[in-house]
């Protein structure tokens, strides 16, 4: 088959994807998500009528689930920026099939993050006051400015690489229905001429350069909402960088999960290959390291200093009512580390006299973990939650060493990513709530926070909305950047050939050319 023919086959198959999507499973999930969002909207209307008193918020703990979700969704949104912009600028070829999904997650999670702020506001009807009379001295105005410009530019950044694909989709259509009209409108008269291509490349590069500092600023100012107050364990200089690292960490995890879903449900194993999961898992491990370093810095410095107000917050997290959230977070992250670390590689590099890794080889590490758990339990012997977490940790530890799990890069990446998402959401909890439960003037007394059904409904609705928006997007536009994948047609076989030469690469990564694979998969399905 000639290159041109191969290219047309890929274009045809990928462009047909949106039409093919929509089996029974798709619409069932679609309806379930719609229902959850409907429940969330009802809960919100209930809150509008009766005021925020229907939430679990109080005078001491006046920020809760909504603000945590806001921080979390903004964090998720960092997936797109990192993958797309940084990898584009550094010319990482393997990014090509990954960028579209990443950019879509970004745009949708920022939209949902915005709704979380609306849900938290006492007077959403006065939102425009922030625009007409915004005070530039307020961290919330920095938030408004950077988040809205981030939403705008990431939407543009999602749209720009879509233009050639939209034009392609339009040309593949046989009848002129509403789809044709939509594609025709959005394709901006794209004809694929050299001038147009040059302009598009230029625009994408410019956006990629601009969007990186913008994304860093977004999560930094989100952190500043907390850090600019004088509250213990909020008023800390590490908050900005720590939030940015946490954001990229959770964003990568979200991207891996969505990629796995797309790969499995659309049978795109030939395009979204194991190597993509492997690279992103490696990146996830790197960001685990960065996150862990930030956590150590924050907690060790605070704990060693021992200032009374800060110690009250610290002990509420580690030993008192927030132990469950805090230690589950730590266990999740520890699990991520154990799953993602390439133990076989470690064994090989250290020239350990072991052929394969078995659970018993990790026994010393496990003992070390348990010493830590016991030391903590000895401070609070009456806390059963800590015991539960400890046992869960043990089970997790054995699970991750199950050989069948370790053989699949995708399932390892997904299980690590799920742990990261849970862990990062719990981290948002243990940043926002514990500080509020221990006010600076101690006489006010300790606050407590239990979310109500309204907050839980709206939270689930938020997660569902990200999913629903993504599903609608997948029904309209290709989830793989067709023109970018085709552009690298010549490069990819070379890269793959080069990679397969290395003896260190597992057999599962030694693929043939992209085109043959995708053809095979498609014809099988």
């Amino acid at each position, binding site marked *: 088959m000639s290159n041109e023919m191969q290219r047309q086959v890929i274009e045809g198959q990928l462009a047909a994807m949106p039409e093919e999507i929509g089996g029974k499973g798709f619409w069932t999930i679609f309806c379930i998500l719609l229902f959850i969002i409907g429940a969330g909207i009802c809960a919100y209307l209930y809150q509008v009528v009766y005021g925020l008193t229907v939430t679990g918020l109080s005078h001491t703990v006046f920020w809760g689930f909504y603000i945590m979700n806001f921080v979390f969704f903004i964090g998720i949104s960092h997936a797109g920026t990192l993958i797309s912009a940084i990898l584009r600028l550094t010319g990482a070829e393997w990014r090509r099939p990954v960028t579209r999904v990443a950019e879509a997650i970004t745009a949708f999670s920022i939209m949902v993050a915005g709704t979380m702020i609306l849900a938290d506001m006492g*007077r959403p009807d006065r939102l425009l006051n922030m625009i007409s009379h915004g005070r530039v001295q*307020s961290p919330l105005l920095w938030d408004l400015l950077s988040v809205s410009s981030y939403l705008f530019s990431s939407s543009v950044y999602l749209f720009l690489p879509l233009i050639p694909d939209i034009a392609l989709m339009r040309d593949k259509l046989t009848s002129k229905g509403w789809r044709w009209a939509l594609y025709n409108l959005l394709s901006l008269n794209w004809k694929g001429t050299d001038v147009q291509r040059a302009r598009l490349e230029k625009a994408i590069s410019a956006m990629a350069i601009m969007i990186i500092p913008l994304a860093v600023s977004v999560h930094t100012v989100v952190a500043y909402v907390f850090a600019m107050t004088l*509250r213990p364990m909020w008023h800390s200089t590490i908050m900005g960088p720590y939030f940015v690292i946490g954001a990229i960490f959770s964003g990568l995890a979200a991207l891996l999960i969505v990629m796995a879903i797309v790969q499995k449900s659309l049978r795109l194993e030939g395009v979204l290959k194991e190597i993509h999961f492997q690279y992103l898992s490696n990146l996830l491990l790197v960001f685990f390291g960065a996150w862990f370093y930030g956590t150590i810095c924050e907690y060790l410095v605070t704990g060693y200093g021992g200032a009374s107000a800060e110690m009250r917050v610290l002990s509420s997290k580690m030993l008192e009512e927030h132990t469950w959230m805090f230690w589950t977070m730590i266990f999740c992250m520890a699990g991520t580390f154990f799953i993602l670390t390439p133990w076989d590689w470690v064994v090989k590099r250290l020239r350990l006299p072991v052929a394969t890794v078995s659970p018993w080889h990790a026994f010393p590490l496990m003992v070390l973990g348990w010493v830590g758990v016991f030391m903590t339990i000895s401070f609070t012997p009456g806390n059963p939650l800590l015991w539960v977490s400890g046992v869960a940790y043990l089970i997790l530890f054995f699970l991750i060493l199950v050989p069948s799990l370790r053989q699949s890069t995708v399932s390892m990446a997904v299980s690590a990513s799920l742990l990261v998402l849970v862990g990062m959401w719990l981290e948002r909890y243990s940043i926002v709530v514990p500080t509020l439960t221990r006010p600076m003037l101690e006489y*006010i007394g300790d606050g407590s926070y239990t979310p109500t059904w309204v907050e839980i409904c709206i939270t689930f609705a938020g997660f569902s909305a990200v999913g629903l928006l993504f599903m609608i997007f997948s029904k309209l536009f290709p989830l793989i950047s067709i023109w970018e994948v085709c552009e690298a047609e010549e490069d990819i076989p070379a890269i793959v050939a080069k990679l397969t030469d290395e003896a260190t690469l597992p057999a599962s990564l030694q693929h043939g050319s992209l085109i043959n694979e995708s053809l095979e998969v498609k014809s099988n399905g």
Partner: protein
Amino acid sequence: MANKLRKTGISRRKVLGGALGLAAASIGLSGCGDLSVDAFMQKHFKELSQEDLAKIFKRLEEEYSKEFGKEFKVNAASAIPGVLFGYALDISRCRGCRRCEYACVKENNTSRNPQIHYIRVSEIDASKGVDLVHARLDYNPAKVPEPGRTYIPVQCQHCREAPCTKVCPTHATWTEPDGIVVVDYNWCIGCRMCMAACPYGARFFNWAKPQIRPDEVNTDVHYLGNRPRPVGVVSKCSFCINRVRRGRYPACVEICPSGARKFGNLLDPESEIRQILLRKKVFVLQPELNTQPKFYYFYSVGRGFDI
């Protein structure tokens, strides 16, 4: 053709009606009734002309009298030139009777349900000095003061460098020329950033529409002070702006049975507050935060009892 026209006419009317209905429903829903088009379009307090103010007062008076069945008088008496209000609290005389708390609630029309108290008196073991770590809000003996106890009331400190006004995203809270930190309840968006910034826990959010019994409501109200609050906004102690700008003491000062509370003009060298600053050893809460409160604490006499 005619049929077609009629059809489009109907659908257009339907669409318009639907849109209007939706708008009306949303206005009805948000703010449960206290949000009118006028209130929605209202300008910032500092941009209002005298005529605008008169109109707003009329609207508010109507709204309040409808709600409570009483005639209300809304004013916005402005700051007196050459006045900077300051407060001093004599810890040695405070007996922890909490009369100030309830006088404040009555004067300021703060919500009874959910309960909001601008002043909160706490009890400390006297041997510990003013150690707020060991303070308790929920003391409840048959008789106060108890021996070996110090009482310390905390309310808005009206800081010179107020962290709360610094972080407000909409200029809904600011320091008036006479040093009173106020909130425009018709401008606040309810983000609660000021509550996060305040180290004294002195700002209170109206989680629900404040409930006040009509027979308990104070009908003489100031726009920036004690007027009935809408739901979803932050409110706080205003040194009883409605009283002090017309030459009266705040309600808490007036009610205090032991004379522990002192109030006056910091710019007048002859005022009681200046004499206290001159002669007594005063301190402020959390001076290390550089908030520079205009609310001072002092001991006028020894505690008068052993530990």
